[in-house]
């Protein structure tokens, strides 16, 4: 495929997307729609996730190095790049899941909602409830659908049965799974199909009412039909949540995201609007990647 036809393909994808979107956010200060729990009239221009020379090391190996980027509320940001470039590392740093890896060490500043999350005094439980995560392979607990979605709220201390029922229903509706499972919430979650399981995981993450939703290649284990459903879901969710999605699939990034960050070998190469990244990237590395020269 030539560079031209590639660009044309991306452009057409972006055109389709452009007709749907209302606002085209840029990296600079701009008035953007507010977050879910703020009224629509209030507009926030502060970044909800701010990285400042952030680095993550596993022992002596570099995970990511000197990342500086701002992610704004109610947007979808895609992180793209070849394998092993630190996309998942950076994503997992945002909700401190890297603490599970032995000898993991962070340097620099990473702020979520104005708070440095690598501060010693941070409340991890609270952080992880504010920053939800959806993993690559759907991993519902071996419990019932209801218990899966209610897991988060129960951790938060919600014991009232009707309240739980309400939260579960809301979350399942938000993740477009309610219609398919409302008859039998006691069914085991492992009996669902792959796409349903992933939507269940999204519902589970949404049940804690997070501000940010991190998605680590959510569709890579799913068939195209399920992938399409998830992408539609992301489209619906972006009005209320900030979504950061890591993806190997450039076309998917072009379809769902407004901003895109290109990582390579642990460094942030370019971070800009998706349309610009795919049509007219400023760095040569970016252009080489999006046109398929390597990756």
């Amino acid at each position, binding site marked *: 495929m030539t560079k031209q036809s590639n660009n044309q393909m991306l452009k057409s994808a972006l055109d389709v997307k452009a007709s749907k979107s209302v606002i085209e956010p840029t990296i600079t200060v701009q008035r953007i729609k507010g977050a879910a729990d703020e009224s629509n009239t209030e507009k926030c221009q502060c970044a909800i996730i701010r990285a400042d020379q952030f680095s993550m090391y596993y022992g002596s190996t570099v995970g990511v190095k000197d990342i500086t980027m701002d992610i704004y509320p109610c947007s979808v940001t895609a992180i793209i790049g070849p394998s092993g470039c630190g996309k998942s590392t950076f994503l997992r740093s945002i909700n401190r899941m890297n603490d*599970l890896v032995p000898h993991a060490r962070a340097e620099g500043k990473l702020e979520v909602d104005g708070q440095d999350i690598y501060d010693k005094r941070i409340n*991890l439980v609270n952080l*992880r*409830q504010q920053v939800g995560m959806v993993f690559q392979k759907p991993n519902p607990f*071996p419990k019932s659908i209801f218990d899966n979605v209610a897991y988060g709220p129960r*951790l*938060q201390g919600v014991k009232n049965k009707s309240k739980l029922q309400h939260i579960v229903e809301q979350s399942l509706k938000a993740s477009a799974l309610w219609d398919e499972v409302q008859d039998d919430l006691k069914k*085991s*979650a492992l*009996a669902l199909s792959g796409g349903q399981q992933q939507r269940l995981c999204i519902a589970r993450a949404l049940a804690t009412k997070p501000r940010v939703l991190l998605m680590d290649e959510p569709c890579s284990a799913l068939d195209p039909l399920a992938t399409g459903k998830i992408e539609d879901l992301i489209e619906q969710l972006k009005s209320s949540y900030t979504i950061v999605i890591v993806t190997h699939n450039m076309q998917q990034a072009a379809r769902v995201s407004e901003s895109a960050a290109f990582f390579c070998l642990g460094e942030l190469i370019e971070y800009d609007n998706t349309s610009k990244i795919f049509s007219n990237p400023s760095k040569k590395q970016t252009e080489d990647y999006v046109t398929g020269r390597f990756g």
Partner: protein
Amino acid sequence: MRLAVRGIIDRAFTALTALSVVLMCFALVAVLGPMIWRGTGAVVFQGTVEFRKMQLSIFQRGDPSSLEKEINQAEHIRKVVYETIDKFKRGIDTEALTDEARKIHREFGKELRYKDVSIDEYTQLRSISRDLRNKLENAFVCRDIEQIRENIEYVLKYENDTRIKGTRAEDFFRLAKEFQKAAESTDLSRYYEYAGSLAEVEEIIVKLLRPKPGEPVPALVRLRYGATRWDHAQKLLDNLLWIEQWVEKEPGKPLVKVLSPRAEQFAGTIIEPLFDYVPENLTRMLKPRWTFYWQYFIDDNVNSHYFGGIGPEILGTLVITLLGMLVAVPLGIISAAYLVECASDNFAVRIIRMCINTLAGVPSIIFGLFGLAFFVLFLFPVLGFESKPCILAASLTLGVLTLPVMIRASEEAIRAVPQTYKEASLALGASRFKTFITVIFPAALPGILTGVILSLSRIAGETAPILFTGAVALGPIPKSIFDSTRTLSYGSYDMAVGDRLAMMVPHNQYGMVVTLVLLILGLNTVAIILRSRVFKKLKGR
């Protein structure tokens, strides 16, 4: 390798595996079969009227009125046996006869003193009585039939003496006549042979048909009843009818056992027909009936397992097993959780792991000694308990015994839980403890239950650890965990090395062993069913 050769090897391998399975099944049947067959004999057997008598008087079970009818019927038949033997005995038991003669003489003398007789008559009658007594004694002790007849005739001459009529001295004549009859029918030269064999015969009859009516009730309970089981009665009958003799058939070779009928020994005597009468009428004397003695599992035993059941043993085994599990399972799961979740991979932790794996193979007697030394002798006084073996010490020892197995199985199970569950749970804001309790532990439950099953079997069957720490062979039913108890495992051992008494009730040994096997099987089955249900729920079916 050529295809044909490979095919042959494949087929040979399949045949070998099939053969090994067949061998295993065969071995299982060969070992378990006789055990179960004999063991059920402890519960399902033909019980005689003696058994029902024993049940009624010791355990208050059964219908008194119908039992009494049965007893009367049996006694009627048995009377013949008793009387024949008594008669024969009187014929040859000269000591008793002599005693009786002397008694008669004494009592006659007493009688005379109360009667109104003159001194002369008194002296005369006394000397006659003495004379008769001496003549009778002579008759009793001599072996020659002519001499006996002489003496008896002399005694009987006084039969019509009016002075003696109506007094105690008349018994002299009765004694004389009886003895004469017995002497005529007995070959007195074989007296000693009779005496020995008769004692044996009497012993067997007594074991079969006790009690002899009129005799005082023995203190030992097991001597109060005859054969309670029909198979036991058959064995006694064999002993009655046949004599075992070890004969040297060929010089220099080991002795050979030869059975000869006992009837030959008593040929010509009044006892001889007994050896036909008893076998023919044994069913009517003992009234065997198929009994289902399910209370075997509840009753306490009587007189070292001669009668009764193994209830306390079963209770002891169950209590010790459950308490031991209570010690081993929580500790095992928590230790495994620590080793998987929290322990860093440093030298100390590696040493601990090595120790746990080594302990899994330590002989159980070592644990018994450890339990005695640590729990009974050291820990209990420190805690203020009495320093003696008890259920608590035994359970603690057994818990420590199976702790390594439990830790190993739990560790494997917890490690096998997919890391993704842990990640998902943590990403939702759960603490590590909450994650373990609500996600990891339920997912690891099937593997942990496997460890529970293994521990259960081990604890229920172990004998060595409880030898010094809590088990006794005979004793009261424990009232608290600070008492010792009897258990099935220790009881089986004790009966196997025990005294002759235990040999007389082999059904009890088999019963104990089979009960232990079935108990373990039952507990295992429950645990396996539980595990499969948890497993199915985990898999979403």
